[in-house]
């Protein structure tokens, strides 16, 4: 398999919540087997991009392609079957079910046999979660819950991972571990589309960076280039970029 073909492609996508259009003719491509990092101020529309890709919002215009095939309008089940997994922002567990049951449900599209085989592997990676295997998910600490969520998605061994701000709530060591893992997966051919505000660390493991403002693509560059560029650093990392940050969060 050629690891450099386009895996994800947005073509002039317009999408939003009811009548409020968040993405304005957004176009970009993400290559297979790479980590593409989505950056941008709060409210830029990063999460909206992932939601549109995962079929939670239907594009008004334009098209979303996966491996060259349109997935606009596909159901989550179909997308999962194609090997896409999504870890949304915020809390997404079933609080009253146990940690183990949450993992089981994560593998519902795989069948229980496979799921039960894979659960121990995933738990090896998150020892904190393993200890709490039989407590209710809502009893976990914030970071433990996030770990469980990430683990739940990894269970699927997805070809494409959409991950929205994984570092929220995770302690630095765990963040580093998760990033390392994502890098390893990408190197093995998984396509990762990640949103992060923890920009510095995220850029270090990413291949390509895309910056959004007001639902528009403002920049797409190799991550390494961006890390090195002093101007860009000020723009996104420094906090001096007031006027634009404001306008762009409309």
């Amino acid at each position: 398999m050629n690891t450099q073909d386009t895996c994800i492609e947005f073509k002039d996508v317009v999408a939003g919540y009811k009548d409020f259009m968040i993405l304005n003719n957004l176009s970009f491509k993400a290559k297979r087997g790479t980590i593409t990092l989505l950056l941008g101020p709060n409210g830029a529309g990063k999460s909206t991009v992932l939601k549109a890709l995962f079929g939670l919002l239907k594009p008004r215009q334009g098209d979303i392609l996966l491996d060259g095939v349109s997935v606009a309008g596909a159901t989550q089940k179909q997308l999962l079957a194609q090997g896409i997994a999504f870890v949304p922002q915020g809390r997404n567990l079933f609080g009253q079910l146990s940690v183990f049951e949450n993992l089981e449900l994560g593998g519902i599209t795989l069948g229980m046999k496979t799921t039960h085989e894979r659960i121990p592997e995933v738990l090896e990676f998150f020892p904190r979660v393993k200890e709490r295997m039989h407590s209710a998910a809502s009893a976990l600490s914030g970071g433990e819950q996030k770990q469980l969520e990430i683990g739940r998605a990894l269970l699927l061994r997805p070809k494409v991972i959409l991950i929205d701000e994984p570092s929220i709530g995770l302690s630095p060591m765990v963040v580093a571990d998760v990033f390392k893992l994502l890098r390893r997966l990408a190197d093995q051919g998984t396509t990762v589309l990640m949103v992060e505000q923890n920009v510095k660390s995220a850029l270090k493991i990413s291949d390509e960076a895309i910056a959004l403002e007001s639902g528009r693509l403002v920049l797409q560059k190799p991550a390494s280039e961006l890390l090195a560029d002093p101007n860009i650093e000020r723009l996104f990392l420094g906090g001096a970029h007031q006027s634009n940050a404001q306008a762009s969060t409309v």
Partner: protein
Amino acid sequence: MKKFTLFLIATCAVLLLAAPPFLKNYGLYLLSYWLVFVIATMGLNLTVGYAGQKSLGHAAFFGIGAYTVAIMMKAGISFWVGLPTAALICFFVGIALGFPALRVQTIYLAFATLGFNTAVWLVMRNEEWLTGGTFGINGIARPSLAGFSLEGNLAYYYFVLGTAVLLAALQWGLLRSPWGKAFTALRDNPIRAESLGINTRSYTLLSFALGAVYAGVAGALFASLVQFIEPAPFTVGASIMMYLMVVVGGPGYFLGPLLGSAVGVILPEWLRFAQAWYLFVFGAAVVLLMIWLPDGLLSIPDRIKAKRQAREASAARAAAANTLGAK
């Protein structure tokens, strides 16, 4: 929204003031009946719609108000003493009913209030020495106001209308004051509210108590409108109907009870042409109404407004995006 509200109020005011003299007894009775329920559901809207406390026991207060006035008038005490007494009793019983709400929420609270309603109803039915039991209390007189008798249907109608307007004005004032925000905060996120110094305990109790006062006043008016009371109109079923009226009208919308009560009281009457099927049609209409407007009738202007705002916001966002693009 503002404009729409004003328009609605103005139209209603003209109709409510000018039309009644042309109506016959039944029309007047029905309108008065409706206004009584408007008052009662205004109270419930405060409890359920604004403060978010799921109460299914409102008819109990309605009943307590009605019985207080009826019993006092039978004992020869004036309506004008009975009315405030009813309001006061309801206020304190309302506070008492608020206590379970401090411990439990949602369906559990709904059930606690439902239980309270049943208990009150049982007392009304069984304590014959006080309430007349299942025979009820008959021949409740209508009061006179400043020497002017309210016995006639038209006079009584205007009296109920006046009371409703007065109570609506008071509620309007209350909701516009910081209290209104505190109630909404309590509804949206009680945990956060408390950590911000909002005394959720007091506001919860008061939301019940104030709601109960409205129901009590409505009950008092009801007693002397129908001139007879018995336990039946104060059952859990009646509470459920009041809840329905609030939700259909639009919970948390100031004028919701006006439309909601119209659906609950006037719509079935109007549907009587459907003969034996009229209640079936009514039930079906409620279902369809909910499906069409899950947030209640008064959410229509909000919907329109939200749509317009969303369009404007989209445009602004697109414009902002374009300036970026040009860079």
